[in-house]
């Protein structure tokens, strides 16, 4: 308990900056991929733009399909909060805060269930 209390104030600053970095970089690469998709779409007006499964998306990236890059952008955006939760779990392990590590892992598991139910 003593260790947990200490960590709340001592590492609060670093935690915040780390979470912030995950969000900013996640948004950045997602928007970059979306922009590449939009540019590709502008150069290939006939290319179909459809929702893609994760595996179709990966093969489409090589072939510079606009649809694949747009879907990747959406996918990276969805992955950003997930990455933030994963990083939080690791942070709580490092500061020996077992309760919050367990809570964060539980949140991550709920997201994984949603991911499994969702993305094929």
């Amino acid at each position, binding site marked *: *308990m003593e260790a*947990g*209390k200490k960590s*709340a104030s001592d590492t*609060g*600053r670093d*935690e*915040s*900056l780390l*979470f*912030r970095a995950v*969000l*900013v970089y*996640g*948004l950045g690469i*997602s*928007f970059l991929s*979306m*922009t590449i*998709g*939009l540019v590709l779409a502008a150069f290939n007006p006939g290319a179909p*733009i*459809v*929702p893609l499964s994760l595996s179709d998306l990966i093969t489409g990236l090589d072939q510079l399909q606009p*649809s694949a890059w*747009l*879907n990747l*952008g*959406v*996918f990276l*955006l*969805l992955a*950003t*909060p*997930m990455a*933030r*939760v994963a990083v*939080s779990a690791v942070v709580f392990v490092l500061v020996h*805060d077992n*309760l*919050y590590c367990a*809570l*964060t892992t*539980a*949140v991550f598991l*709920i*997201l994984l*269930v*949603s*991911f499994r*139910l*969702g*993305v*094929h």
Partner: protein
Amino acid sequence: MVGIGGGVLLIPLLTLWVGVPIHNAIGASLVAVIATSSAAASSYLADKLTNVRLAMTLEITTASGALLGGLTATFLNRFTLEVVFAVALTVLGFHMLRSSRQREGNHEPFHPNSRLSSEYVDSYSKKTVRYGVRNLPLGLGVSFLAGNVSGLLGIGGGVMKVPAMVLAMGVPMRAAVATSNFMIGVTAVSSAFVYYSRGFILPQVAVPTALGVFIGSLFGARIATRMKGSRLTVFFALVLLVFAAQMALNVLGIRMR
């Protein structure tokens, strides 16, 4: 601008004006909500306003609620979902009209033994505000409901989380808004994967919406600081009620643009 993620305005705009089916509009809105809330959350994190531990605790119920809400929505047909949305907009509109004078709850005193207690430096008064958290079970319950509504309707749910934290849990307004934004990404993702799998997230709708709303929110934040908060809330409440009426007419087969 007024602490709502924008989803609540986006969905009626996309369905009523652009003619996007409501399930696809919800999918696009969830994507846009993740973009704006992540951006807002990162600036609140820089200001050290976010109560990370409180967010993690409430995320458990809000994420499971959102997952259930998302699953429910995919089973509802277009008509039912539009009725649900019209009702929700009406309730929200009246709620905003009533609460246009933002009330602060009584802050819960700082409990040194509780890891949920937190502090931040108020940017206006330059004073350190230390506060505790009360009524955690109630907060968990409201978060579950907020998640449910979010998954069902594609909105962030901050409109329920912020009042719950401020009025019931004794969290100061600024910390509540920051913490709510931190949670919204996780809430929206829990149901967004469900929409993604059903093919409801159309990239040609979601990508322009996400980029547009993100850019819009950058300008919105600047305009909002120059307008009186309560007037802004009344304006948005009236917009919501107009949308609710349009959505209701749409359900009855009368299209108005």
